[in-house]
């Protein structure tokens, strides 16, 4: 004797009516649409520390990329049924196709060449239900906006008898072709019937079958007779198997929303949670609008209680006008828009982000008990979080760390190790100001799928430190790019994994030795120097890094003159930036030996005839800044570069390299200014036009205030100069045009 209760997944209306039906019927066995592996997780339902929203995570032991989440909210009918069963000691059968077959079949089926990127082939939140929702289709046919409001109206008003009507309606819908009837669904339904038959054979007096409404028609007593046992067995023959593990993980409200891509999702999880928690149907409107008013007040917008009363009245009047027994979410929104928000849609949206459960900022994360069996890595993770006083929350939080404090330094190390494991919980915020290498900012936001990443990382080691080390070893491939290895070294240094650091540095050294691209080597220098500086703050041993820097610097210095010989304009520009970075870094490092080597290389570079003019100019400037040459020598080189013999384009490039960055050179030294001035005024028209953009580019690197200072200086100097250039040949026609233009501007 069994009764089929077709429900709508995550619908508070279904949950409430199911609870009433179960209490009335008091079955002694419950058959629920969930994979078999869920049965081993059921004992934890008794633990009060298991707070929804949670999800059952079932994954293939060999390949944790193949996994499925089964979410439950406090308003999910399945959750309500399972809690009822545990509370009353009723046996629960899970009748859906076991994940050991599902996941194996998924591997066979999903042989899509497009999903080649392992990052893509992760989680498929598979809902225990159907995709094309026939309940929505029926609701829309009845003129309702969505399935839940139709269900509320149809089910709540009547009670128990509605379940039979729902089964009938779904039978008609199936016959009409609504909903997907592919092989997977038919296989699952065959398995469901098998399990149901086994449960009935056991001899229970009253069995309650709880499944998605779509499957209800194929699980009735008649359906069990119509579908022959051997047909079902044939469909289930020879299914592939794989070993699976299961556990509970915390889940969040926003993940229940359809917008997050969840197939059995709901429009507004926050609204459904509210519907479920409301004491009575009359209470729903008043409590929702009160919450709305509180949300508005939290945003500093006035929302007095009198307005709440008025909006409740308006919502009820609207519901009456539209023939509804009670206001629905739409009526409540219109009422709050008209009364609480004075017609301003922005205010409504502001309040709703807090309430509807769609925004990650106001998300609710469930909890799982500590006694749940966890992999050693997970236990280590929780233990570390506890000792560092870090909480795992769905709310996004920004944490600013001061690396001079021990506690903050420990937190930073922990975050960097997790970063090596690829856990998307803490993300570093790039320091825009770069003031003080002791400051670090992190954004913490727990996405529920990160639990899977943590489980996956367990195969690398038993603790976070071990797993991070193992992870680093896997990344030390010989083919890795220099920049990648440098980033890895940076990460490893910040994570304080010193034993692995030597391996990374060795790999870097090897890579740098074979690196033939000078731009790559040069681009690697500034980050390497930054690494050395960082290391000082964290108190780690840097001799290996020091040696590496020496090696890279030597190689660069040796290769520079020849490598610069054939550079085109764009590559030269990139190299100039690397030169600048290296120069600044080396000066700040205050290592005399390295600096000497570097300056010697610059001298050679500047002296070589094949160096591009941009770089030659830059080297002169750098040497001048480092006081290796004096101003007379610099102006000599400048006048050489700007002499008529060299092509104007080359001269402009030299000038650009020389002037880039700071204008103080020109401000302080009139001689240099005059040189440039006479060069510019001595050019003919064609050359002037071709060099103007390049010269302009050089000057555009100065700040606006600096340019104004320069202009003032020039004007002042100009007023003292005695030579005035009068051009005897002028164009009278042009003068007349200018006069006419002036007259036009002055409005005559």
């Amino acid at each position, binding site marked *: 004797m069994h009764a089929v209760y077709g429900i709508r997944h995550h619908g508070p209306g279904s949950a409430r009516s199911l609870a009433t039906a179960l209490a009335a019927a008091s079955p002694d066995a419950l058959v629920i649409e969930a994979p078999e592996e869920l049965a081993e997780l059921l004992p934890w339902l008794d633990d009060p520390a298991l707070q929804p929203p949670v999800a059952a995570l079932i994954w293939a032991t060999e390949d944790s990329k193949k996994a499925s989440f089964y979410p439950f909210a406090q308003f999910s009918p399945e959750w309500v049924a399972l809690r009822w069963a545990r509370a009353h000691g009723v046996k629960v059968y899970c009748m859906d196709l076991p994940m050991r077959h599902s996941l194996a079949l998924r591997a066979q089926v999903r042989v899509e060449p497009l999903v080649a990127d392992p990052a893509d082939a992760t989680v498929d939140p598979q809902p225990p239900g159907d995709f094309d929702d026939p309940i929505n289709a029926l609701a829309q046919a009845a003129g309702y906006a969505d399935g839940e409001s139709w269900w509320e109206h149809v089910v709540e008003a009547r009670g128990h008898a509605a379940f039979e009507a729902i089964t009938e309606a779904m039978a008609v819908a199936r016959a009409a072709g609504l909903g997907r009837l592919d092989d997977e669904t038919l296989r699952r339904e065959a398995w469901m019937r098998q399990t149901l038959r086994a449960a009935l054979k056991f001899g229970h007096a009253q069995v309650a079958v709880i499944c998605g409404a779509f499957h209800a028609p194929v699980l009735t007593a008649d359906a069990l007779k119509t579908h022959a046992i051997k047909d079902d067995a044939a469909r289930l023959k020879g299914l592939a198997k794989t070993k699976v593990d299961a556990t509970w993980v915390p889940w969040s409200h926003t993940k229940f929303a359809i917008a997050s891509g969840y197939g059995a999702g709901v429009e507004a999880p926050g609204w459904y949670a509210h519907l479920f928690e409301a004491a009575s149907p009359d209470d729903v409107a008043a409590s929702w609008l009160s919450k709305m008013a509180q949300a508005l007040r939290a945003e500093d917008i006035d929302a007095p209680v009198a307005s709440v009363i008025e909006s409740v*009245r*308006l919502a009820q*009047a*609207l519901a009456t*006008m539209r023939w509804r027994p009670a206001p629905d979410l*739409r009526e409540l929104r219109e009422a709050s828009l008209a*009364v609480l928000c004075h*017609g301003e*849609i922005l205010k409504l949206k502001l309040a709703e982000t807090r309430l509807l459960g769609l925004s990650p900022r106001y998300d609710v994360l469930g909890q799982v008990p500590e006694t749940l069996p966890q992999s050693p890595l997970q236990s280590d993770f929780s233990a570390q979080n506890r000792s560092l006083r870090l909480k795992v929350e769905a709310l996004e939080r920004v944490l600013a760390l001061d690396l001079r404090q021990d506690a903050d330094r420990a937190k930073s190390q922990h975050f960097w190790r997790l970063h090596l494991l690829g856990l998307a919980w803490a993300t570093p915020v790039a320091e825009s100001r770069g003031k003080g290498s002791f400051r670090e900012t992190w954004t913490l936001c727990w996405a529920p799928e990160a639990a899977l990443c943590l489980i996956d990382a367990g195969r690398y080691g038993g603790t976070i430190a071990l797993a991070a080390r193992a992870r680093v070893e896997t990344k030390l491939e010989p083919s890795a790019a220099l920049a990648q290895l440098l980033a890895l070294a940076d990460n490893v240094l910040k994570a304080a994994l010193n034993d692995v650091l030597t391996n990374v540095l060795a790999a870097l050294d090897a890579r740098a030795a074979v690196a033939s691209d000078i731009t790559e080597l040069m681009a690697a220098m500034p980050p390497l120097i930054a690494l050395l500086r960082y290391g000082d703050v964290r108190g780690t041993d840097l001799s290996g890094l020091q040696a590496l820097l020496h090696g890279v610097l030597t190689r660069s210095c040796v290769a520079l003159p020849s490598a610069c010989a054939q550079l085109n304009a764009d590559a030269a520009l990139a190299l100039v930036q690397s030169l600048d970075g290296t120069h600044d870094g080396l000066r700040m490092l205050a290592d005399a030996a390295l600096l000497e080597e570097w300056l010697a290389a610059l001298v050679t570079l500047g002296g070589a005839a094949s160096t591009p003019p941009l770089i030659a100019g830059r080297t002169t400037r750098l040497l001048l800044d480092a006081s290796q040459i004096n101003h007379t020598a610099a102006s000599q080189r400048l006048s050489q570069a700007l002499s008529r013999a060299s092509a104007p384009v080359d001269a402009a490039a030299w000038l650009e390299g020389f002037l880039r960055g700071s204008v103080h050179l020109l401000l302080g030294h009139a001689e240099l200014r005059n040189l440039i001035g006479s060069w510019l005024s001595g050019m003919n028209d064609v050359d002037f036009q071709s060099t103007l953009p390049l010269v302009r580019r050089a000057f555009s690197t100065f700040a606006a205030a600096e340019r104004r200072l320069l202009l003032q200086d020039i004007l002042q100097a100009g007023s003292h100069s005695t030579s005035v250039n009068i051009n005897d040949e002028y164009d009278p026609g042009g003068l007349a045009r200018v006069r006419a233009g002036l007259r036009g501007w002055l409005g005559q």
Partner: protein
Amino acid sequence: MTTLRQPVEIQFQEELEALRASDTLPRPPRWQLSPQAVATYLLGGDAGGKTITAKYVGSRRLIETAIATLATDRALLLLGVPGTAKSWVSEHLAAAISGDSSLIVQGTAGTPEEALRYSWNYALLLAKGPSEAAIVASPMLRGMRDGKLVRIEELTRIPADVQDTLITILSEKLLPVPELDIAIRAEKGFTVIATANNRDKGVNELSSALKRRFNTVVLPSPATLEEEVGIVQMRVAQLGHALELPELPPALDEIRRVVTIFRELREGVTLDGKTKLKQSSGTLSTAEAISVVSHGWAMAAHFGDGTARAADLAPGVAGAIVKDPVQDAQVLKEYLETVIKEREGWKDWYRAARERV
């Protein structure tokens, strides 16, 4: 019938009677129709076999919110840019609910308190002293006494101190007359509809106490081109009938082109979203489109050959766009050169408009 424009309750008398006859649903006190019937009257539908024309083309839910507000006897505030049918909707609501749309208070910068409360019959006052007979009731007071719907136009133009007399009227539904030491209480069926436009300068913002007494409904511009063309066509036909213009209304194509120009300049981007446009300082609302098209129709009828063409409509369109002679002329010129010149089949518009600019 020599008046220029009949009151709405006379114009649509048959529809209202048909609705009254077939309406079986409960009515709030002193309402002529039930709320659902009022919604049918405004949005169009069927009543006892008679087709009810749609007076407002737009979101059904907004109108239902407005009617539900009035049914819960809260005051209704209709907001929106000029030309979005606020006064139109309030007039029809008054006609449908009370059967009388004549109780209007026109808000201007010089509206005195007497317009909202009462004034005195000075002769009687001097002869017999203060008495209730000496009070000359304002439309608001008459509405309160008879339990009818009162309309206030342009609430935000009324000076702030006069606006605040509404606070007691709306919250306690009573008008105190301190000179006689009495208070006149409103009869059931009294509500207020106020309209305000949020685009003008020189507007007196409502105090928060007054804002709280109203339920606000914002009427938007028509969402799609089709909707706007439909509205313009319907209203132009009605206006032409009233002005007794000759039979042939402007072709749908011409109306569509005028509305396209208005929509593109209003949004600041062409309909396909590819070209950005400068916007003029004029509002270019649907109401203006209606008046431009009927103007063009009249021009064609009296000075042309009866068919409204680009040459007849162009002056009106140019006049609606160019409100500021310097800036907007630039806007129109740019629009002509960049958009209209390139369009297929708009040569006649280009030529006609070029002459006007």
